[in-house]
Every structure is written in C-alpha cells, then in structure tokens.
C-alpha cells in the first residue's frame, strides 16, 4: 500500500519537476481562459437574458471558465502520453514494478497540480475584474480540490482515449471533437434551468457539470450549489475512480 503511494508520488513528481523547468508553459496556457473571461464574460454580461439568479453574469460564468480552462488543458493530456510512447519513455515505466494503477494515478495527480497552479493565475485576474470571490481559507482549499479533481478526471479520460487511438493525428482529431460537447453540455456558461430537456440530460451525465456546480458555491460570494457540495464531490470522485480503473487497464495497450 505504501509502496503504491510512493510510486504514485514518484510519477507525479516527475511531471511537477518538468513544470518547474518550464514555467512559461503555465503562463501561455492561462491566456485562453483569460480571454474568455475578459471578452466573452464582459460582452454577455451586458445581456440581461440569461437567468443567473442573484449573481451577475460575470460572477456566474467565472467558475465555469475556470472549469473550462482546466478541461481544455486536461483533455489534451493524452498527447503527452503518446509522445512519451513514441520516445520510449513510457516503455520503461511499464517495465518498472509500479502497478498500472499507480502509474495512471500519478499522471492524474500531476494534472491536478498543474491545473491548480493555472487556477491561481485566473484567480488573480478574476480579482482584478472585481468578480466577487470568496477568499476564506476553506473556500479556496475547496476550489483547489475541485480543480484538481476535474483535471484528474479529464486527463485520465484523455489518457484512456490515447491508449485506444494510439497516434497523435487521430488523437488531435478526437480531442477537438470531445472538448466542445463537454463544455456546452454543461452548466459552465448558462444555467441548467435554461436548457432544453435533452441537453439537461446530457449535462447531468457530464462530470464537468458537478465540478462547476461545486465551484459556484466555493468560489463566488453568494453563489449556491444546486446539488449540494457532497453530491458534487461524490459523483466526480466516483467518476475518477472508474476512469483510473479503465485507464490502468488500457495503459499497457498503448505500446502495441
């Protein structure tokens, strides 16, 4: 058991050390969500059509954009796995005695750490934009946990996809196809109440919805979670465990 944890941490540590060598990457990746916040949020905030309860639209969408930025990066995580396979790095990990679950969990954990560091940048800009952030220690820790969980889910999903499609070209195609539906079939930038029934059904099956729902309460002053935080976290935790199981099963297949 402890061996398992140490091996998981070793895999995550490798990824985090890479980030330390290349911090610019984090900055460049924060640009896109910032544009969403600044441009999209400001413009749509003028419309009074979107029923966001007592929140301003900007306050309403900020958690959605944070979750989205995590999603967009995590969903392409599989590319780096394919890259490591092409180089031969992955072969050596698979020959090590670490269990496949430890290898996949370590990757998920590192995606979580990466997402948390990106969230800090978005938080800083959100504060500048006078979005009403809750800045209590508990709330911020909750946000970080939620972000790490979301990143772990979508990066593991991405890893599983990479193990099936195996080549960079096919993966890029599929990644593009996956991101937008995941984003739009969620409550990220409009409330569930506004959706037609079929879309609401899809959104209810989308882990992103639960992440955004939790973030709304944890991040925004006056924000309320629709399903309640325990349910939000429980659903996503179960999804993560299932995905790690799947990813661990598929992981060795990437080299054949």
């Amino acid at each position, binding site marked *: 058991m402890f061996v398992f944890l140490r091996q998981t941490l*070793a895999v995550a*540590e490798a990824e985090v050390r890479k980030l330390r060598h290349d911090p610019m990457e984090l900055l460049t990746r924060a640009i896109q969500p910032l544009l969403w916040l600044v441009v999209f949020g400001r413009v749509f905030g003028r419309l009074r059509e979107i029923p966001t309860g007592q929140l301003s639209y900007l306050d309403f969408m900020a958690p959605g954009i944070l979750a989205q930025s995590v999603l967009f990066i995590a969903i392409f995580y599989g590319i780096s796995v394919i890259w490591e396979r092409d*180089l031969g790095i992955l072969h*050596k990990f698979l*020959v*090590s005695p670490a269990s496949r679950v430890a290898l996949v969990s370590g990757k998920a954990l590192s995606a979580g750490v990466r997402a948390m560091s990106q969230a800090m940048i978005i938080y800083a800009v959100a504060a500048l934009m006078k979005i009403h952030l809750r800045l209590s220690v508990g709330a911020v820790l909750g946000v970080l946990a939620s972000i790490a969980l979301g990143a772990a889910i979508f990066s593991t999903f991405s890893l599983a996809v990479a193990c099936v499609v195996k080549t960079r070209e096919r993966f890029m195609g599929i990644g593009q196809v996956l991101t937008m539906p995941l984003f739009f079939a969620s409550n990220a930038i409009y409330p569930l109440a506004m959706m037609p029934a079929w879309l609401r059904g899809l959104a209810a099956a989308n882990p992103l919805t639960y992440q955004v729902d939790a973030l709304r309460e944890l991040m925004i002053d006056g924000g309320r979670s629709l399903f309640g935080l325990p349910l939000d976290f429980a659903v996503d935790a179960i999804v993560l465990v299932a995905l790690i199981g799947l990813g661990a099963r598929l992981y*060795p297949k990437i080299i054949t």
Partner: protein
Amino acid sequence: MRPAVSEAAARCGSGAEGSAAPAVETVRLMRRFGPLTAVDDLNLLVPAGAIFGLLGPNGAGKSTTIKMLTTLLAPTSGSARVLGFDVARQSVEVRWRIGYIPQLLSADGSLTGYENLLVFAKLYDIRRAERARRIQEALDFMGLADAADTLVRRYSGGMIRRLEIAQSMLHRPAVLFLDEPTVGLDPVARHTVWTHLRDLRRQFGATILMTTHDMEEADQLCEVVAIMHRGRVVALGSPADLKVTLGGGATLDDVFVHYTGTAFEEGARYQDVARDRRTARRLG
C-alpha cells in the same frame, strides 16, 4: 554487508531463486501481429551471468522478443520465464528483478540527468539513504557526475545512452535487457558503452541480454549469440564457434549473411527502417 534497503529493493537484488534458474528460458514462444508472425516458435536458454546477443536483420523479431521477456507484450502462445518467473503470470515478480533499455530513447529530455535517476529510484522503491548513494554511484560509474544537473535534452547521444544504463542499474537488476544499445552512436561512444556494459557485468554480476544488428558489437561483447531470421533462431553458439563452423577464416559478417541471406534489409518494413533512422537522428 549490504546497507539496510527496502524490502522491495532487497527483493530485486541477487535473488536466491535466480542462481538456480536460468536467466531466461523460452519454450515455443510465439507472437503474432494480425497475419504476421513476428516471433515464431522460439526456444532460448540464457544461462545466468552471460552476455547473450540476439542478432538479426531489421524485422527479424528481436524487439518483439525483448518486449515479451520484459512483460511489455503478451505472448500469443508458448511461454517464457525470467529467473524462473513466468512473464505472463508472474509479471510483477519479473519486473522487480530486471532492467530494460528500449531501442528508442527512453530518458526524459525535459528532466535533468539526476532527476531521471531519482524518479526511477523511487519507482523501484529504493529508500532515501540508499537512494542518494546509488544515484551518486551510478553517475560516477557512467561518467555523468558533471552533467547531473543539466537537462537531458542537451545531452549527446552517447551521454543519453550512458544515463539510460545508469537508470537501469539503480535497482541492481539480475537481468538487463538492452535493445540495440549502440544504434546511431559514433564509434567512440559505442566503445564507451561496451566498456560500461562489461564493467557492469563484472561489478554486479548481471546477466545481459542484448539485441543488435551490428556484427562487430556481437563479436566484441557477446559470449553467446543467437541469430534470428523471420522470427526464428537460425544459428546459435559463441561467435568463435559460429565462425569455425563456417570454416575458411569466416567473419561473423559471413556467418550472418550465410544464415539470413544476403539482403540485410530483407523482411524489414518501411516502418522499421524509418524508426531506426529516427532513433539515429535523435542520437546524432
């Protein structure tokens, strides 16, 4: 004598069961990819302590064999044992005890040499105090101490290979698998790698199973070679014996040509050649 190491690390030391069982033994080992039989009915016996060479042209099935022995690929049929452990059913036991250096470059360019070693020391669960000592020793042994804190993407091909060997010896594997260890290296770097492999065997008593399509390498390094062609072993013996069998001052090159036909590239698909070139370019 050995300082306190973790249970796991101790297990991968010179396992007691390893001394009795041969390092590698395969029985009718076979692997298919769709219609293609990459490894066909392979029976190999590698005694403990040997440097064993698997020779053959591109596409002969060498890498596929190594991948099965290192638990990366499941055999289609037949069986293989490493140190007495079945690669399919006891894969974790096998993994604790072996080292593997793939044909492709396997060190991570975006980490330093030290970090590459650190991560693997942790994956093999070598405990902290022992870890620092072994990493330092590996760096010294491979002549990489000065480059330890440099990102590996700035290393030369020869340095990367040496780092990979350093990585693979951290946990003192009883069997070390190397797939084309010197492909794409310049002659000086090649000789350095050879020297290190010999030293490694002398110092740690590891069995070495390597593939190569380079006759000089086999002649210089290997005590026993098996020549593979289209998934089968077509000749087996010490380089000297094989030359004698052919008679008339034959070189190992002659032996190779005799058993595999003249066409060196025969059986090699575009993919194989492309991959070798790619590796060579990256190393060059």
